[in-house]
């Protein structure tokens, strides 16, 4: 069933044809229904007419015969009355009536007992017909006392002539014959009006029955006749004759229709009734028979009446159904044929859909809807090809852009320190940093490097995200590196960055930046915070590093960024982060916030890598399925410089006069000997210290002013350290740009070699301006 429905759904031709045929069928059904109704009505009317006519005819025929019997009887009565005393002549009369009226079956002229004295008690002249012969006899005897018979008594009692109810004839021996007869009886009266006998003429009801039974307007119709009491006199079922009335059956199976019919017939009405007879629908037409009080009915089965029209009905229905089926087939064929181009189009569309965009569409040369569809489809194909070409181009461009972005990400990541631990040879610092971009490239940055025993580090967050932020990030990070090579003071680094950025900041980007410079020898941290999240110091406890409010860089040119200082105790970790950490959101848009950072810090080790690992895990757990909304950067630095025991110490203070250099040389020689250096190293130490000291002598004090320069030499596990200090004007030799020793003689300046030599000779140098003194430390490992 489902497959049929599917088929119908799939086939437009079938569906349309079905609709058309269904509609046609509806019209046919209505039209034929009306036609059949009308025809039925006509047939019905015709049957009524026919039945009525037959009934009338039959009634007339019966009446005619009966009339003849009545007239003959009246004539004979007249004869009998003329000669009432001649018994023998009665036979003549009775025989005569039969002879002259072939319709009559018999005739009795019966007299009251002892009417003829000579005849005794019984005298009834009776003539009857057997075949063509007429016999006469005296039928009264002790066996057959005729004067008790209905036909004799009825007219006497009623005192008027009339027809008896039909009855089985009885012979003189009291036996019933097989034929049913009805008699017309007239009383015989003398002049004084005394009743002395009855004259009765019989007609055989066999004849009546044959006449009535012959009435067959339809093959299966039949006629009945009932008497005044409802007794059947004519009925196809002969067993019912005389013994049953029309009401008999209704006593067992109440049948109101039949009872009503019986009553109507008894009352002598004429008409038609529709009712069930023996389980069949029938029309019953009834009419009283002449003046007898009998009534006749024709029972016509409905099937018979309408058999013709039903046959017609069936034939027409068959023709219509075959016609409709034929129509369905033809329609399906026609529509299928008409839709063939559509199917072709569908096939081509399938081809196009499978990726063959250059497939040739069929050209139908039609101007109807299918032609229009084909044209539209062609246009669509054209547009599709164009669109897909564009899409391919766009996709390719996007892929290129994505691969470029990937390269950009790699470049950006390569800008960040990525080898940890970054200074495996140093045991005084441990650093770990991590950057997670929300997009391919991001605007967070961090960096650190050690120069002259100073750890320069920064963390920043560029406003916005994506490529613009990444570009600014790259520039900021590069400039930080460049500036920090010759600038040691954080607020000055930030100021230069700010001024540079403001100059070129057309796109109004800004960067929050924290820059710190940690002196590795003393643990002194100098820093400047340009609007960035405040770092957390984790030592014995955890707390925020106090920060002045400064605007982010790029916002306001010429802003005076403040410098702040703090001393970092060995073992303390500085934890820096961007707002991607505090503002990390979970699905409910709750933020991670500072409190959770402290919670993690309290539970975690303050070793940088472990701390950041724990923090990352906490954030991921908190964020869950939510998308990372911002770049997340963390940087942790643990300062671990513990002062080692000083094994040797020697100091010298010299005036700012270069003539005291030999004295310095002597001092250096003594120290180098204590350190156990060879001659060549000793000479180089001399060179480095002389360069540093002479530099102070020449430049620290105003020209002509007296000043002093101190040299403190200490030997510890860290190595040999010369600390050259003075209280002249602040001057940081480490921030001087390097001399290019590859230049030719012509290109070279004369000076600038001193600091270069110092860097070449010593393992590291370190400058600090502490308590109004320039302190330059030169370190040589042992």
């Amino acid at each position, binding site marked *: 069933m489902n497959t049929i429905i599917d088929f119908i759904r799939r086939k437009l031709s079938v569906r349309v044809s079905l609709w058309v045929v269904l509609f046609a069928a509806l019209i046919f059904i209505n039209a034929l229904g009306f036609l059949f109704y009308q025809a039925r009505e006509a047939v019905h009317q015709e049957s009524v007419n026919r039945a009525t006519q037959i009934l009338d005819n039959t009634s007339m025929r019966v009446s005619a015969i009966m009339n003849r019997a009545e007239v003959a009887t009246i004539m004979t009565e007249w004869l009998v009355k003329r000669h009432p005393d001649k018994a023998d002549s009665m036979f003549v009369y009775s025989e005569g009536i039969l002879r002259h009226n072939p319709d009559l079956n018999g005739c009795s002229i019966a007299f009251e007992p002892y009417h003829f004295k000579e005849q005794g008690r019984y005298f009834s002249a009776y003539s009857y017909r057997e075949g063509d012969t007429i016999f006469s006899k005296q039928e009264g005897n002790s066996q057959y006392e005729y004067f008790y018979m209905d036909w004799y008594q009825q007219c006497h009692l009623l005192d008027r002539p009339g027809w008896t109810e039909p009855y089985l004839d009885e012979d003189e021996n009291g036996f019933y014959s097989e034929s049913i007869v009805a008699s017309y009886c007239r009383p015989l009266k003398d002049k004084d009006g005394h009743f002395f006998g009855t004259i009765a003429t019989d007609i055989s009801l066999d004849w009546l029955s044959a006449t009535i039974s012959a009435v067959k307007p339809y093959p299966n119709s039949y006629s009945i006749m009932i008497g005044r009491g409802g007794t059947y006199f004519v009925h196809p079922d002969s067993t019912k004759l005389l013994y049953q009335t029309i009401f008999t059956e209704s006593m067992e199976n109440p049948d109101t229709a039949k009872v009503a019919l019986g009553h109507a017939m008894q009352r002598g009405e004429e008409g038609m009734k529709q009712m069930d007879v023996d389980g069949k629908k029938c029309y019953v037409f009834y009419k009283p028979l002449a003046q007898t009080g009998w009534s006749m009915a024709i029972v016509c089965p409905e099937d018979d009446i309408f058999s013709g029209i039903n046959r017609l009905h069936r034939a027409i229905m068959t023709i219509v159904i075959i016609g409709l089926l034929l129509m369905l087939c033809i329609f399906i064929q026609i529509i299928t044929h008409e839709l063939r181009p559509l199917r072709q189009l569908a096939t081509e569309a399938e081809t196009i859909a499978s990726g063959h965009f250059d497939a040739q569409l069929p050209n139908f040369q039609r101007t109807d809807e299918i032609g229009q569809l084909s044209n539209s489809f062609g246009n669509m194909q054209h547009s599709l090809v164009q669109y897909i070409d564009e899409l391919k181009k766009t996709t390719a461009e996007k892929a290129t852009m994505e691969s470029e972005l990937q390269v950009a990400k790699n470049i950006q990541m390569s800008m960040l320190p990525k080898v940890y631990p970054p200074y495996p040879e140093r045991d005084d610092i441990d650093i770990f940093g991590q950057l997670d971009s929300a997009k391919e490239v991001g605007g967070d940055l961090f960096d650190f490097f050690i120069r002259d025993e100073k750890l320069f580090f920064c963390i920043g967050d560029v406003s916005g995200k994506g490529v613009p932020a990444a570009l600014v990030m790259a520039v900021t990070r590069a400039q930080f590196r460049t500036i920090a090579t010759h600038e040691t003071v954080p607020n000055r680094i930030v100021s230069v960055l700010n001024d540079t950025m403001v100059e070129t900041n057309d796109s109004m980007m800004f960067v929050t930046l924290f820059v710190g410079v940690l002196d590795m020898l003393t643990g002194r941290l100098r820093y400047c915070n340009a609007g960035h999240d405040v770092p957390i110091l984790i030592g014995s406890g955890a707390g925020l590093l106090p920060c002045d409010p400064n605007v982010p860089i790029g916002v306001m040119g010429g802003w005076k960024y403040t410098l702040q200082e703090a001393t970092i105790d060995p073992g303390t970790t500085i934890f820096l982060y961007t707002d991607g950490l505090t503002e990390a959101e979970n699905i409910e848009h709750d933020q991670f916030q500072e409190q959770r950072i402290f919670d993690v810090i309290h539970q975690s080790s303050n070793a940088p890598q472990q701390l950041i690992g724990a923090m990352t895990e906490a954030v991921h757990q908190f964020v869950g399925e939510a998308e990372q909304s911002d770049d997340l950067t963390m940087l942790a630095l643990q300062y671990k410089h513990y002062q080692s025991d000083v094994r040797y110490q020697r100091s010298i203070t010299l005036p700012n006069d270069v*003539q005291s250099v*030999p004295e310095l040389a002597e001092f250096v020689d003594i120290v180098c000997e204590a350190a156990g250096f060879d001659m060549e190293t000793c000479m180089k130490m001399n060179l480095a210290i002389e*360069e540093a000291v002479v530099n102070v002598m020449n430049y620290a004090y105003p020209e002509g002013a007296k000043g002093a320069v101190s040299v403190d030499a200490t030997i510890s596990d860290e190595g040999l350290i010369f600390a050259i200090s003075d209280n002249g004007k602040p001057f940081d030799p480490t921030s001087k740009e390097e001399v290019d020793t590859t230049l030719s*003689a*012509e290109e070279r300046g*004369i000076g600038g*070699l001193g600091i270069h*030599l110092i860097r070449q000779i010593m393992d590291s140098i370190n400058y600090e301006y502490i308590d109004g003194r320039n302190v330059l430390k030169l370190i040589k490992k042992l």
Partner: protein
Amino acid sequence: MNTTFREENNDYVMSFEGRLDTAAAPDVEKATAPLMDCAGHNIILDCTQMEYISSSGLRIFLKILKNAKPQGSHVYIKGASEAINSVFAMTGFTNLFEFI
């Protein structure tokens, strides 16, 4: 610091003896005055007896070189010890001077 100047095979030879440090530099610079007018002569800086040289000394050597080159004179450094040579190497002088 002692310096001696002599002319030898048409070459100007300047010998340095002892420590050429910042304290000694001004005198040494004065002593190198004869080397300034060196057209037609190559200059040999004899460091055989030199114990030490500081950046002040190197500056004097560079000044001599810068003066001599335009006059078409070659400047040679002679007999420098290994320690002194390493200082020349650190400062890139090995690329500027010719060594004999």
